[in-house]
């Protein structure tokens, strides 16, 4: 073989250099022009806001949240008070239809020629303003949803990260525990745990937490204890794949410490998955909360929740169907918006779906 020739043109076999012209400076500069620089986050956000469903869901959610914050300040009724007219309980103001006033209220308005704040969603069977109860119910649902998924986030990420990064036997044992928890019938366990916590735990003398009620706290515990397994599995799987990437080896080969590798390579690379998972966990938690409240294991009375409102409305369904419709629509709007946002986030941030 003619090696002298090869030495000069190592790739002449595949390519004939004579057929090529040198690039002009102008052409070289063109090569340098690159697309607008975007960070991963910016890029994902841009895609998220280009998704009409997600934008709609965000607007709906924003409106709901504003209503939840503003309504208790504007509406002069409280969620636990029976409507009173001139300091007297209005016993007849039960089960009013939306925007209907009781006879006492009408008389009061005529007498003083003032207007009484309308009952936007009517009143319930005890004569409490239904709108404010639905608003508080939605608040409870949202708080439970957000805190429960934060708990899932914390426990799941920690567990999954340890398991995935440690690998080997540790990983094996930790994942078998997850498998066992995963195979339990979760609704049954939720109910059992909710019953047990309801009876055994008493948070009433702990500040702030006590105010939420034992039921609500035990609800967080139930979610945290049960639903982290999915998160742990996902995080572990993600870390296992990230660990296989050559950039982890590259970081080791330049002398980076394990802490540095975890902090600046592994966590940033699985952050998007964690955020997406959390966003998808919120509606699931809200749904379970409503479900538990519906079967009477949810938050304590008189604190309303969307589930317990729906449950209470069940008995009078034929006469007062709106009492079931309002909390049900609220649940649907909240859960649907979160689901749409969660899905859109997954589409926008999941690098595997990237072209």
């Amino acid at each position, binding site marked *: 073989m003619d090696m002298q020739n090869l030495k000069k043109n190592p790739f002449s076999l595949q390519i004939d250099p004579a057929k090529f012209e040198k690039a002009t400076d102008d052409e070289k500069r063109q090569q340098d022009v690159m697309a607008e620089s975007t960070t991963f986050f910016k890029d994902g956000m841009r895609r998220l806001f280009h998704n009409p469903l997600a934008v709609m869901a965000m607007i709906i959610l924003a409106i709901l949240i504003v209503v939840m914050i503003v309504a208790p300040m504007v509406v002069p009724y409280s969620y636990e008070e029976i409507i009173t007219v001139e300091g007297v309980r209005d016993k007849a103001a039960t089960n009013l239809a939306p925007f209907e006033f009781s006879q006492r209220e009408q008389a009061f308005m005529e007498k003083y020629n003032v207007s009484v704040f309308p009952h936007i969603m009517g009143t319930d069977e005890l004569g409490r303003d239904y709108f404010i109860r639905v608003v508080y119910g939605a608040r409870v649902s949202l708080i439970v949803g957000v805190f429960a998924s934060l708990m899932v986030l914390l426990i799941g990420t920690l567990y999954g990260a340890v398991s995935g990064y440690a690998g080997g036997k540790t990983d094996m044992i930790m994942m078998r525990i997850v498998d066992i928890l995963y195979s339990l019938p979760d609704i049954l366990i939720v109910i059992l745990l909710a019953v047990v916590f309801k009876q055994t735990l008493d948070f009433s003398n702990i500040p702030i937490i006590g105010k939420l009620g034992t039921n609500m706290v035990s609800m967080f515990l139930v979610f945290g204890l049960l639903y982290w397994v999915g998160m742990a599995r996902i995080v572990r799987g993600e870390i296992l794949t990230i660990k296989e990437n050559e950039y982890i080896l590259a970081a080791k080969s*330049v002398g*980076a410490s394990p802490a540095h590798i975890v902090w600046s390579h592994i966590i940033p690379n699985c952050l998007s998955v964690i955020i997406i998972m959390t966003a998808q966990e919120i509606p699931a938690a809200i749904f379970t909360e409503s479900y538990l409240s519906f079967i009477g294991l949810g938050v304590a009375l008189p604190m309303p929740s969307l589930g317990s409102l729906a449950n209470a409305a069940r008995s009078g369904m034929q006469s007062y169907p709106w009492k079931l419709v309002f909390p049900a629509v609220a649940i649907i709007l909240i859960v649907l918006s979160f689901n749409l946002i969660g899905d859109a986030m997954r589409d926008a941030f999941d690098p595997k779906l990237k072209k």
Partner: protein
Amino acid sequence: MAEDIKKSEYLVEVKNLKEYFPVKTGFFKTTPLKAVDGVSFNIKPGETLGLVGESGCGKTTVGRTLLHLYKPTGGEFYFDGELVTEKNIHQLRKQMQMVFQDPYSSLDPRMTVEDIIGEPLDVFKLYDSKGDRHDKIMDLMQLVGLNAEHATRYAHEFSGGQRQRIGIARALAVNPRFIICDEPVSALDVSIQAQVINMFEEIQEKLGIAYLFIAHDLLVVHHISNRIAVMYLGKLVEIADADELNNNPIHPYTLSLLSAVPIPDPETARKSQRIILEGDVPSPMHMPSGCPFRTRCRYATEQCAQAMPELTSRGGDHMVACFNR
């Protein structure tokens, strides 16, 4: 320099390097996979040793084991006369670096070019101030032919060739004396390959770095290497000067590799015979006894099944591990 010669002529001395991976073969059973089995070679300062062999023969593993990315199963590695151990490897990473095979997975997608190249600088605190760090990174980008304006870009915004340049800049950041180049061009287009290879040569001329240049393409290796080592199933079968190996190949495996190189001239091509190897590469889990190549070798005899031939000199630096040639 005078001191170097006193210590040893070689910058890199590898003696009987072994890397066995435990592979689960049963529920409680693991069998060692002998990815690298007794490899020895030396590299002088500023020299390039090419390492060729087909896919899966253990080339990458040699490189990674030298850098202690895998814990070596056995053997010794002297860097500049100093035995490399678990203890001193961290400091030695300032002197030896690696360029990885896959330009896509070897750069963290969440980091900017600046941070990727700056990582070794950060680890070893090789700068006095933020400005100093920035200047160093700019210099490195210039050196490997990257546009310094792109420092704040993310790796996924670059082409394969540019990404490999980023990887090289990262390796150069600590100012090493030895770089293991693990098939740095095999994932690139042929035209880009030539550019990147030329850059490796320019950098070597400028900085006097020694390379262990891994590839499975003999053309590429021949072009860049002073000497070439041929590897088959975890063992070196032949090692010689690049031209000597090319003009006078001795080991039957080297012969077959060379005969597989396409020949530009059709006249010569017709005259030369392609040696087509029979059979498949044996699995490294079930290595044949004696010489690993004997199952596909047309010169194989009884003796080859008994023992592994040692690398013996066939004149000067030309070492071959074969009984029959």
